[in-house]
């Protein structure tokens, strides 16, 4: 088990967003966190990464209490792709990706080592952005930028990768490209992946296990066909839906019935 979350509560200031969430994540998992707006998906990701302090409960990472692990060591084992990666127009792609080597930098080390450069190059190859490396971040499209963010995270050589809506605002082509890349990293490089997803069909088709959050609590955990059932979705999203079984491993697809609010 790579991550154990025991009964945590967290939020912003006095406003609690998560209450009593527990979750065990096995090594090599490909896990999706779904739920309506404001249900605490991003907050859960931030609580796991340590960006938000816990008010209650605790988290163990690879068997050790997360508070015993230094910031730097944690950054060598866990990488996070947030939603705010569009702020740095003046870095070139290769400069941006090599920033992922920061957790490995010595205290008085000024330049990257040869190994840092090699790891960054490999991360760019793996994500298929080698041809972009001299381009500036500001010139990239949304889909390219997301690939670059993933490349930077991979340059951290993490064992656990957290992503906050990696496919938001992307067209279906780029969505599939990102998902295929993440699945490949998961399978071939045994990287544990936990991501927040908004898109239910994408979550159903790509994830092995889903966590459905509702109002800051875990509503259901399990395989997509166990979580995405008519009763649960209608209750949580407060709409009326039809469920369609696809030919792909029997994964369910949600078809909202327009105009029928439950």
């Amino acid at each position, binding site marked *: 088990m790579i991550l154990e979350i025991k009964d945590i509560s967290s939020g912003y200031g006095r406003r609690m967003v998560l209450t009593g969430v527990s979750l065990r994540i096995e090594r090599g998992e490909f896990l999706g966190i779904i739920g309506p707006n404001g249900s605490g998906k991003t907050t859960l990701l931030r609580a796991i*990464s340590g960006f938000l302090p816990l008010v209650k409960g605790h988290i163990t990472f690879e068997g050790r209490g997360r508070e015993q692990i230094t910031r730097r060591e944690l950054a060598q084992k866990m990488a996070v792709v947030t939603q705010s990666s569009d702020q*740095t127009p003046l870095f070139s792609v290769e400069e941006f990706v090599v920033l992922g080597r920061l957790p490995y930098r010595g205290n008085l080390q000024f330049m990257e080592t040869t190994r840092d450069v090699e790891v960054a190059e490999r991360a760019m190859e793996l994500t298929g952005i080698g041809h972009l490396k001299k381009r500036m971040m500001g010139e990239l499209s949304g889909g390219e930028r997301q690939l670059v963010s993933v490349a930077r995270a991979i340059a951290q050589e993490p064992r656990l990768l957290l992503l906050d809506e990696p496919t938001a605002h992307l067209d279906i082509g780029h969505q599939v490209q990102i998902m295929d890349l993440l699945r490949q990293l998961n399978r071939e490089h045994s990287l544990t992946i936990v991501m927040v997803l908004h898109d239910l069909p994408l979550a159903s088709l790509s994830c092995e296990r889903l966590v459905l959050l509702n109002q800051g609590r875990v509503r259901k955990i399990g395989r997509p066909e166990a979580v995405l059932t008519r009763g649960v979705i209608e209750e949580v999203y407060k709409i009326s839906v039809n469920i369609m079984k696809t030919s792909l491993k029997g994964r369910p697809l949600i078809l909202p019935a327009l105009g029928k609010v439950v």
Partner: protein
Amino acid sequence: MAAYRQTARWGWIGYLTMLLVLVALFSLGVGGVHIPLKKVIFLLTHGRGTPDYTILFTVRLPRILLGLAVGGGLAIAGVVLQGMFRNPLVEPYTLGISGGAALGVALNIVVGGRAGLGLFSLPLSGFAGGVGVMAVVYLLSTRVAMLKLSRLLLIGVMASFITSSLIMLIMAMTRTEDLHGIIFWIMGSLQEPNIALIWVILAISLGGLLCALFYAADLNALSLGEEEAFHLGVKVERLKKVLFFLSSFVTGCCVSVSGIIGFVGLIVPHLLRLLVGGDHRILIITSYLAGAVFLILCDTLARVIMPPTELPVGVITGLLGGGVFIYALTRKGVSL
């Protein structure tokens, strides 16, 4: 070894160093007494005792050294603050430090503190005023041990307004000869009779450069955003505080000697970012050099445009800096 080291951007460090040497030699040569370049070099080696040597070493060289210290210091304070706030409009003065320094000096002049402390009196009161206002701004922006940057910026801007109102109040109630002293100080100048003070400021400014370089990689992470920096293992809260104190201290020291010289801390980092990109390791070094070049050049122009009258250097930095800046921004293909 590393591929990134060979990028053309690092070359700017070399070009700007050469430019700095050229501008310094030019500035040594021109003025009320013109000394040609060949003679400057000759005097530097064997001219001891001649009148020209005295002009070079007791009048022009100290100004160049102070220009280097103040120009470079203000520029790196600007780089650090703009990187940390991720806002290209922030400069050392936006946060209230110049207002505080000017208020300190104005009070000193009116109260007549000069008698007690002698030559160090004005710099000390400027420094105390600047750092004092920064401390207030800092404390007001800290909530539950977290430094809120958006809050810091707004409170700093308000502090600037309040201090400038107080300065106007003091000026309205003061005698004419004191008024002259206050206005002269606020306009800024690199003329500083106390050579020891110049060495102190130069040491602080170069120390600030080294310190900023030490944090350059962390600053790169912080310029991606606080959350991103956190996930790259940076101790964000500590870093923000260190950078804030670093830039306030360097600015406070510069301002206390030179008075208020605007635009350097705003424009130099900005132009250099367009030129060398967002990597703070390069940006800090090149901004220091470019800030020094810019201020020495402006000061030289201020001396030679209308001799024997010396124009306030702040006027030249504003006109030249503002002009170059607008030109750079309106050129085709520049996007911010």
